[in-house]
């Protein structure tokens, strides 16, 4: 894994979508979700199974309310007051999708990996999901910046508890 490349790609993804700069840095522990945070997850499968119900890894994204608003406003080209909750969710899911493509670099061998579809994650489930499996990468916005963003990749290859219906 080339951490520098991944960090640069994450920053490029955020600035490409919002027009705002944002530097990411590695972190030791995932943040504790706040009441208005939005969370998303995206399964990564491999083509050995190819079934979304058998993910190999998960990408998890946590985003503060202000970041959700800024992202959706930029993507939809609308002022924040005109955005619906569905708009915020749509934009957040797409950010999760785009960040996931960068984080796939952190897998040992991504040559057979397939990105699944992003979906909202209940905030209550964030602690459980972030502490299962083997954490392969965790990046948060640098501490010198006011933004609230965290993205992580957890390898759940041998963990059947993440199987979805």
């Amino acid at each position, binding site marked *: 894994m080339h951490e520098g490349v991944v960090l640069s790609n994450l920053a490029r993804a955020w600035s490409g979508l919002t027009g705002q700069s944002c530097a990411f840095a590695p972190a030791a522990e995932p943040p504790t979700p706040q009441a208005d945070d939005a969370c998303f997850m995206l399964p990564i499968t491999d083509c050995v199974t190819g079934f979304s119900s058998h993910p190999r890894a998960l990408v998890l994204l946590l985003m503060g309310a202000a970041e959700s608003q800024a992202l959706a406003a930029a*993507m939809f080209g609308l002022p924040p007051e005109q955005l619906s909750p569905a*708009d915020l969710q749509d*934009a957040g899911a797409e950010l999760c999708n*785009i960040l996931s*493509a960068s984080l796939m670099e952190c897998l040992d061998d991504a*040559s057979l*990996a*397939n*990105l699944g*579809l992003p979906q909202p994650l209940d905030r209550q489930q964030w602690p459980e999901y972030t502490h299962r499996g083997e954490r392969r990468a965790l990046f948060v916005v640098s501490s010198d910046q006011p933004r609230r963003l965290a993205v992580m990749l957890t390898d759940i290859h041998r963990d059947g508890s993440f199987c979805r219906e």
Partner: protein
Amino acid sequence: MQTANLAPLRVLIVDDSRAIQAIIQRVLQAASLGPLQFELAMDGEQALRLVTSFEPDLVISDWHMPKVSGLEMLQTLRQIGRHEIKVGFVTTETGERHLSQARSNGAIFVINKPFKDEDLLREVQAALASCREAAKGPAPALESAEALNRLIKSQMREIPFRLIPAPGQGLNDLKLPHNLAMYVAEGQKTPHALGILDVNACCILGGGGAQLQPPPVRLALNSGVPTPEMMTQADLFLRSAAGILTREPGSPPVTLKVVNLVAKPFDKLRSLMERDIGRSDYRLSVPGYGEGRMAFIRL
């Protein structure tokens, strides 16, 4: 860009994110791409349903979507024979094994998310230019009517004539026998084009080339039998026509390879005419002589 008289091109944006749909639409609307119509679909299944009603010129699609993926949508389009619809991808997919599948199914571009506006615009501009070119139909087999007019004038000299475009004429409209010429580009084995003079055109161009008075030409027309002198002149005309056949810039010169008098129409010639990848069809009318027909077919 000059937009007057341009029919709007139809762009179908397929992405399960409404936010990405909005970005793509905004980028294209802000650019001077000529008149555009948009339709949106949330997945490949919905896109395939819209293809029949919306008839898109260009589909800009995501890859990973519920129900039917972007690749599956592209493959289905090709399987149902919709080869003319251009498809490009805007996706997070970077796997070479996937992207090569897209290219082998005719995807015209793959742009990774997040993308720069100028990258998307560059690809879409190229795709739309190609769509507008295709909408004009194939290039004619001859450079221009003026070039043909000059060539006939050099053959007929002072004899007045009228050249009338006859688009869509069929093989049956050309009176038998036909003088059929095959043209080949230098260094190529496959034919470049065919030229057909019907028997009347052979008599007229042959009689004009020999500077004959009207009676012997009318006699040949009525009997359907041109004289050897007329056929020599008709062959010379077909040989000269090689110089006014349409060809790509910088491509090798085209010459007459063979010319034959064909007594009966044959199916292959009919199907080549109907395929129409470039044709020039004319009637040639000469006062006192009569009227004949000619066709040039790009292969």
